[in-house]
């Protein structure tokens, strides 16, 4: 079964083409890294899947449902590139609210909130107001809310952005733990080493088109690191045609 699907999707912002006839299908249980230079369309792809923006052409499905249907976001956790929360809430209040919105209540809610606070290293800051937190702590809060309820699907947009080295390592552990539990991951990132460690498939976007996609072994040449492959693909190859997307866009 397909978790996330973009079918020949194009997205234009005021005449600028952010995505151009992109075909992408992420099966349930896959861990896919979405790579590409700035402006390649990675965040737009995630925003389409969340229903924040509508495709100019083409179709978007999350577990077979259109993103406009709120049920498509049941069991889905999202870490945005720049987490922004209601600034007057404390971390605990925020997590309780998010827990409530995914159907947790009573002891189960309190237990889940407590567990996520401890897991993300926020236990001693539970009463801090979100508006007073540093970027790194905000990123931890973003992970804590995304991991509430152990979601089946995780959409992570630059998940290590703003984290210190210890935070990067923690984030990697959280992502790997989710992957070991069989969760579906779609990770947009510039940090290629992290993607190499946490994902088994990659999709490289360039100028709004898929320049390469497949398992790591498919994309990498012998002895090549992901960084080498990325540079080779982005610098060396023109975006593929729509026909090739359909054939190769499946991660």
């Amino acid at each position: 079964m397909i978790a996330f699907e973009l079918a020949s999707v194009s997205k234009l912002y005021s005449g600028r083409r952010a995505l151009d006839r992109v075909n992408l299908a992420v099966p349930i249980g896959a861990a896919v890294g979405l790579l590409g230079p700035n402006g390649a369309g990675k965040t737009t792809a995630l925003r389409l899947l969340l229903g924040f923006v509508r495709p100019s052409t083409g179709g978007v499905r999350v577990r077979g449902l259109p993103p406009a249907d709120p049920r498509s976001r049941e069991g889905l956790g999202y870490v945005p590139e720049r987490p922004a929360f209601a600034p007057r809430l404390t971390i605990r209040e925020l997590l309780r609210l998010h827990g409530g919105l995914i159907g947790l209540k009573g002891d189960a809610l309190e237990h889940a909130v407590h567990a996520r606070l401890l897991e993300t290293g926020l236990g001693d800051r539970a009463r801090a107001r979100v508006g007073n937190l540093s970027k790194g702590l905000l990123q931890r809060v973003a992970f804590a809310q995304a991991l509430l309820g152990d979601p089946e699907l995780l959409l992570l947009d630059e998940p290590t952005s703003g984290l210190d080295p210890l935070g990067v390592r923690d984030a990697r552990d959280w992502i790997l733990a989710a992957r070991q539990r069989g969760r579906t991951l779609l990770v947009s990132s510039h940090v290629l080493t992290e993607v190499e460690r946490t994902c088994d498939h990659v999709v490289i976007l360039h100028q709004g088109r898929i320049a390469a996609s497949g398992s790591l072994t498919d994309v990498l040449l012998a002895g090549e690191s992901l960084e080498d492959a990325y540079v080779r693909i982005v610098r060396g190859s023109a975006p593929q045609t729509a026909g090739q997307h359909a054939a190769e866009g499946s991660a």
Partner: protein
Amino acid sequence: MSESSRTNRRIPRARTFHLLAVEAFQDALRSRLGLAVAGCALLALFFVDRCTGFEGSFVLNGEALDPAETVRAMAPVLFGWVSLFLLAASGLVASDGLARPVADGSISLWLARPVSRTVYALARLTGTLALAIAAGGAALAAAALLLHTRHGFALEPALFAGLVYAASTAVVCALAMALSLYVPRVITLFAVILWIQLIVVGNAAHLLGASFGGWFAALERWGPPLGSALFYAMSGWVSLRPDAHEVALVMLRLVAWVALSAALLVLSLRRLELR
């Protein structure tokens, strides 16, 4: 039972709505604009207290007027003016109620949950309305009690006017929130104040028998009857017996505008792209 299986159950919309509406109310309450609305309500109450507690004497054309009679004649105007002032103040808090989560990006994480935009928009409206109606309603109730205890005004018209105020606040807040998604908040606020004034002037002119045409007539005839409804609600204080059919039509139009403005707000948020 695992955390994951607990969250796989369908979440009732009513629960989602309740959680978000309470959050919106607390958010409005904690904001500076919430304080500003509470300040406006206190100011209005102070104004009513000073005006109805007047014990001096008036002289008009050399003839002394009874202060109590003067207050009795002016009280409905005063109550109506305070209601409209509080209505404009509710536009202040509404101009921020939805625009801020959109501007600071916090809306994204709410909508990344199984929350429809319809539920989110209506929850924000309800939370904002709860604050505006609580602050304004308290001020109007206190004003009505002052008029009742000092000058013997009946409480029924005040109760009717309070209901009209609540419905009018719903219209003003919903339209202000919808507009604030597309224009800066300051412009929203000025637009709301200007729009309320235009409608009230139009309604008052119509009630006084003036005739006019063009867009102004259309606004008066088909727009939300903020002034007319308030006037009819308070008619018991001025011994007027307006045509019951006309009163029913005006109240029906106000209720229709509550539904229409809420629908407009929902539609505006559903069309908005969150980049």
